[in-house]
Structures are given as structure tokens and as C-alpha cells.
């Protein structure tokens, strides 16, 4: 850098860098504090309710043991199964949709995309009210909420094609054409040429589809409708923080939060590269 020769500039750069470091350190603390608090409080054994201090006076695994003996196990399993099934189904649906809209030029293509855009402007909570009643008639609510949830998550997932369509658009079409000239069918082109190239977006889709059910609250609450056996972690643990429960369950909530966050976070950190690619690409292409 040429301005390093000028002492004045160098000093001001020093000052601004120091300021930035201070801001970054403060930010890191602010961003991490809630999570540090959750972890610390999950080990507090002297009381189960909310207190005004952070460091436990007595440490122990009591909350985790209590967690193991509660409905939490069931919720966790429910969520895990839902997340796995959704990750598979949703990925298939989204890839079918986005690949088709990116590569094929058929009569209804523009109309279809415009239609889905308008459809997406309706709050999806509207549909949930009906879906709850329909699933109830099919016997897929309350204790059987898991298959119902999976069905709903997967069925409408084709609407979220934007990010991966943007990715497919960047793969040159000449690849398809070359393979077609060599006698490959359209399906072979997809399997043998496009999918191997699309690995980042496939992983991104799987990752987001897997993470979504862990945080879904509204739909899961509608469909489980007060039956503990059908709840996912979000709905179940939400009930622990309501007025009547928070006294006995607050520290258990913290322990549960840790248990939920650890696998998701590890998975996320491992696949972070793909997530960043997907998110950045999605923002650029809309």
C-alpha cells in the first residue's frame, strides 16, 4: 500500500483499526452471551426457575437427567424423523422444480412462475387452518402428527425453487446440448451431468430442509394440537416457558436448548461453505 509511507495516514488507520477491533470484540460478546448463558444455566442445580444471575452456585447434570426422563425424548425423536424425511423429500421436489424451470422451455413456463410468485404472497398460515382440518380427517394430527407434518412440509416445497434455479442457470447449457448430441436422454443428462455439477446446491437444499423442522413452530403447533406425543421440540419446549411451567422447567429448557443446538450446529458448521454459497447466490439472483 502506497499510503503506508505517510505517517499521518498510518496513524489514522491504526486508530480506525483499533476501533474496529473494539467493536468486533463487543459484538462477539453480545452475540455469544445468550448462548453462553444457556449453557451455564443448563448446569444449574440449586433451583429450576429463572434467576437474576448467570454463574450457577451448584453445578450438575440434573437438568439433563430430568430431560431424559421427560417427554423431551419423544419430541426430539419426532423432530429428528421429520427433519430427515423432509430433507430427502424436499430436496427431490425442489430439484425437480428448479431444474425443469431452468432448463426446459415449455408453453406454460412463464405463467407457472408468475402464478407461484403470486401464490407466495398469501400468508401461508391461511393454508394451515384448512390443512389442520383435512389432516385431522385423515387421522394425521395430534399423536400421529409426524407423518402429517412431513406430508405438508414436502408437498408445498416446490415453491421454494428460486435459489437452486439460480444455480442451475449458471451451468452452461452447452453441456446439456453436447450430451444430447451424443445420444443421452434428458433424464441421463440430469443424472450424469448436471447433478454431479450441482453438488453445492444439493447440499445447500438438504441442509436448509433439514434445519427448518427444528425451528418450525406454527404448523407443528396446529397439527400436534396440544398432544405431547405429536409435538416437535419447538412446540414442546415453548410450553415449558409458559407461566404455569416456567418455575419447574426453566433450567430444563436451557438443557434442552443445548441438546437441540449441538447436532444442528455441528452439521451446519461442517457444511457452512455450501450454505454461504447458496445464501449469497440466492440474494443476488432474487
Amino acid at each position, binding site marked *: 500500500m502506497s499510503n503506508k509511507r505517510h505517517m499521518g495516514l498510518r496513524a489514522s*488507520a491504526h486508530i480506525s483499526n483499533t476501533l474496529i477491533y473494539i*467493536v*468486533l470484540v463487543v*459484538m462477539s460478546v453480545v*452475540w*455469544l452471551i*445468550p*448462548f453462553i*448463558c*444457556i449453557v451455564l444455566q443448563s448446569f444449574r442445580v440449586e433451583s429450576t426457575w429463572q*434467576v*437474576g*444471575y*448467570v454463574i450457577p452456585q451448584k453445578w450438575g447434570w440434573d437438568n439433563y437427567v430430568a430431560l431424559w426422563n421427560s417427554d423431551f425424548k419423544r419430541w426430539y425423536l419426532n423432530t429428528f424423523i421429520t427433519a430427515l424425511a423432509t430433507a430427502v423429500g424436499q430436496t427431490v*421436489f425442489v430439484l425437480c*422444480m428448479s431444474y*425443469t424451470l431452468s432448463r*426446459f422451455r415449455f408453453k406454460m413456463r412463464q405463467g407457472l412462475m408468475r402464478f*407461484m410468485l403470486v*401464490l407466495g*404472497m*398469501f*400468508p401461508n*398460515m*391461511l*393454508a394451515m*387452518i*384448512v*390443512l389442520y382440518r*383435512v389432516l385431522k*380427517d385423515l387421522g394425521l394430527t395430534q399423536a400421529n402428527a409426524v407423518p402429517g407434518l412431513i406430508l405438508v412440509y414436502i*408437498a*408445498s416445497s*416446490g415453491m421454494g425453487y428460486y435459489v437452486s434455479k439460480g444455480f442451475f442457470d449458471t451451468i452452461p447449457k452447452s453441456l446439456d446440448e453436447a450430451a444430447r448430441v451424443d445420444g443421452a*436422454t434428458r*433424464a441421463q443428462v*440430469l443424472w450424469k451431468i448436471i447433478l454431479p455439477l450441482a453438488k453445492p446446491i444439493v447440499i445447500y437444499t438438504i441442509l436448509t430442509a433439514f*434445519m427448518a423442522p427444528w*425451528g418450525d*413452530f*406454527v404448523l407443528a403447533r396446529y397439527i400436534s394440537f396440544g398432544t405431547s406425543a405429536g409435538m416437535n*421440540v*419447538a412446540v414442546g419446549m*415453548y410450553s415449558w*416457558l409458559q407461566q404455569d411451567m416456567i418455575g419447574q422447567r*426453566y433450567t430444563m*429448557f436451557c438443557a434442552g*436448548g443445548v441438546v*437441540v*443446538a449441538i447436532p*444442528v450446529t455441528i452439521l*451446519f*458448521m461442517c457444511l457452512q461453505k455450501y*450454505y*454461504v454459497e447458496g*445464501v*449469497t447466490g440466492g*440474494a443476488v*439472483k*432474487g
Partner: protein
Amino acid sequence: MKKYNDLEYLRLSKGQKFLYRLVSFFAAIPVALKNGCLGIGRFFKNLAAAIGRELADIVLTFKNGDWKTRLSFLIMGFGSMARGQVLRGLLFLLFEAVFIFYMIMGGGHWMSLLSSLGRIGPHDEYSAVLDAYTKVYGDNSFKILLYGVLTIFFIIALVYTWRLNIKQNKIAEDILRSGKKLRSGKEDLKSMVDDQFHKTLLALPLTGIILFTVMPIIFMVLVAFTNYDGSHDGYNNALFTWVGLKNFRTMLTWSGSGVNYSATFGEILTWTLIWAFFATFTNYFLGMFVAMMINKKGIYLKKLWRTVLVLTIAIPQFISLLYVSKMFAKNGIVNGLLLDLGWITQAIDFMGSQAHNALLPRVMVILINIWVGIPYLMLITTGILMNIPADLYESSRIDGANAWQQYTKITLPYMLFITGPYLLTSFTNNINNFNVIYLLTGGAPTNAAASGAAGSVGYTDLLITWLFKITMGAESQYYMASVIGILVFLVVAIISLVVYNVLPSIKNEEDFQ
């Protein structure tokens, strides 16, 4: 208003350009409306013409066709089967059989009741065997409406398939007449993975969308015109029926006497828009700022800072939101700390039901949303910021631009240009940002002035959380929820339309070189 030509337009300053586009957009509305109406008229004219053509073609096919074709008018797929295309023929026949089965099994019944949504409600009936009155259930309005709509879909599909089946016959006849061979079933199957592959790929996702998104939305839009609620659930306690525009009148008429739906709606809509504005732009600019800080030359440990922030994305939002909401509770850690330090003498209810004004909880949810949102924006903007050509900054520095000028003249236009569409979607997502509001405050503190409306409205409630509360409440006024849903759609649609037409970057027009 004054119209500029291209040259005059280019001479305007940025602000004037924006204003010009805004004004010309609104000035164009009457013309657009007129064109829209004309367009609808044209559409129907074309539609009528198309139907006429189709009908003529159908009649001609019947007149000129052989007996196989003619029989296909009644038994779908017969012609195809008789000409050796068994697979196609069977599929047509199967569809017809399913349709007839469905209509007999109840489709016809449900559709015939669609206009009244059921005649006989649940009632008590004298039973001679038991010598007592027992409750007898009658029609089910919910099913009538749902399956009635489904039946209409089905009929449209049948008409379309029937037409397709006739067209197939005509095409097959033409091919045979010209001495060529028809496609075999095997070739049909092969085309499904080749030149018809898009239909194979779209079949499942589209079926899912139609059944699980389109149908429910049509149903709920229709509910807005009924009196479906907790006490008219359509089966167990009473039927529900059509009420016309009554619910829209309840929601939108200003009765002036203080407590009513329209006042509540106006208040919540205003807050929803304020929230969406702040939630979108605070996150956007602060996230960009953080990304720029980390990107800056001479800052070490870039990876560490990013990882710390990204870590918070990975943790499911409901945990962090619920936990943070408890941190700020009256007996939470923040109050405990402030009390210990002696900065306050009495615990503050930041966002709870006892917060003594609307402002503090509202500011709190926006602040916490910044905490939630900055990592995402940091991620998104980091990559884009690094793509800005470095020589732009280089040459601007030689021209004597300072950091602020570089930001406003280079960075910001570039970012807005690239992320314009993202800003729009993020704004509309924030209008419907259920999780942040519901998990943080649940809408609290209660808005006493809005007690006339259903759903115990609070000061931080968005339209979407209000909708949810209405459906969960004891009264469950589904019809009101549906009206709110439709209004949310209108708000989102109008905003999108205006932004698409006014902001150049979304239309990829010009302005950045």
C-alpha cells in the same frame, strides 16, 4: 405532470429521477387500470373465440372421424386402445373411471350443496328405541365447501382430459392416413424420460402445490365470505353459510365509535409496516457495515469474527428467541444485573404484559431482530462486497474521495443494484415475520383500546400474529382470519407492484455503470 424525454431524464439528479419515476408510476395508474380492464375484456373475447374454435374442431372431429373416434367421445381412450396405443388408452379410461367413481361417492352430492353449504344441521331427534332425544348430525359444511371446490377442479380436469382424448384421436387418424406408424407404449414411456421429461419432473411437485397450497388458499379465501367460526364449525354445533361481503364490511367500515375492527386493523397495519421497514433496513445497513469492518484491509482473524456470527445462525431460532425473551423478562438476567449494579431500583418489564407503554417493547423487538438478522446480512453482503472491482476505489482515492464519499458513490449503489430483489423479498417476509414477534413477546403488551376486536390484540402484534391468535382463540373467528389473510396478500402485492415499477435495479434498467 411534465413528461421528460430520455435526454432530459438523464440530466436529472438521482433524487429527481426517483421522484420522477414515483410520480410517473402513480400518474400511470389510471391508464394501467384502463388497460387492465381492456385486457380482461380482450382475454374473455379471446377465450370465447378459443372455445368456439375448440367446439368447431370437436364437432368436425366427430363428423369426419371413424367409429373408433366417435366411440371415444363416450368412452375415453377407446380410440387409442383400438389403434394399438393401449397404455395411453388405459390411462384415459382410468381417469374417466376415477371421475365417475368420485362423483357417485359424494362429489356430486357435495357440489349440489355448495350454494347453501348444507341444509340440515346437527339437531336433537326423538328415538323410539331409547325413548329419549339424541343428537343427530346432519350435513358437514366444511366438507361440502372443501370437496365442492375439489369437485370443480376435478370437472375442469375432466373436460381438459376429454378434449385431449379427442385431439389424440384426430392426430392418430391423420398419422395413420398418411401411412406412418403410431407411437407404441414403449416409446411413450421412453419419451417420459426424454422429450417429455419436464412433465415427469413437474408432476409430483405441482400436484403437491395444487393440493396443499392452491386448494387450501382457495378454500380460505372462500371462508372470508362465510360465517365459519368456533360456534359454526359446520358439523358439531352448527352449519356455516355464505354471508356475502359482511366480514369485509366489519373489518373495513369506520364506525367512528372508537373500538372496532377497522381502527384495530389500521393500527396493526401501521405497526406492521413500520416494523417491516425497520427490520429490513436496520439489518441491511448494519449487516453491511459489519461485513465491511471485517473485510477491511489490516483486520486480522477475519475467519474468527465471521464464525462467531455465523454460529448464531446455526442454532434454531426458537431457542435463541425464547431465551432472549426470558433474559429480558421482569425476573430475568438483564434486570438482575441492572438491579445489582444499582442502575435501576425497580425491575423493568421490557417486553412483557406489564410494559407500561407501547414504545419500549416495539423498540426491543426491532433491536433483538437486529441481533438475529445481522449474521445473515453479513454473510450475504460479504461475498458481494468483495466482488466490487477494487480499481473503482483506487481511482476514486486518486480523485480525492474520502471514505464516506466512496461508500455513498460506489459501495451503496453497487449493493442496492445487486441486492434490490433481496430487499423486496426480505421486506415482504418481515411483514409476515411470525416467529420473531410471537416467540419474543406474543404480541404483548395488551392493547386495551383494541379489546373490541377478536384475538386479544397487543401492541407488538403484526397482522400475521393477529391472524394466528384469532384462529387459536375460543371464538376462532376463521372468517376474520381469512379476511386478514386476504388483506395481507393485497398489501404485499401492492408493495411488490410499486417497487417493481419504481426501483430501477429490480428491473435491471440502468443507473449503475
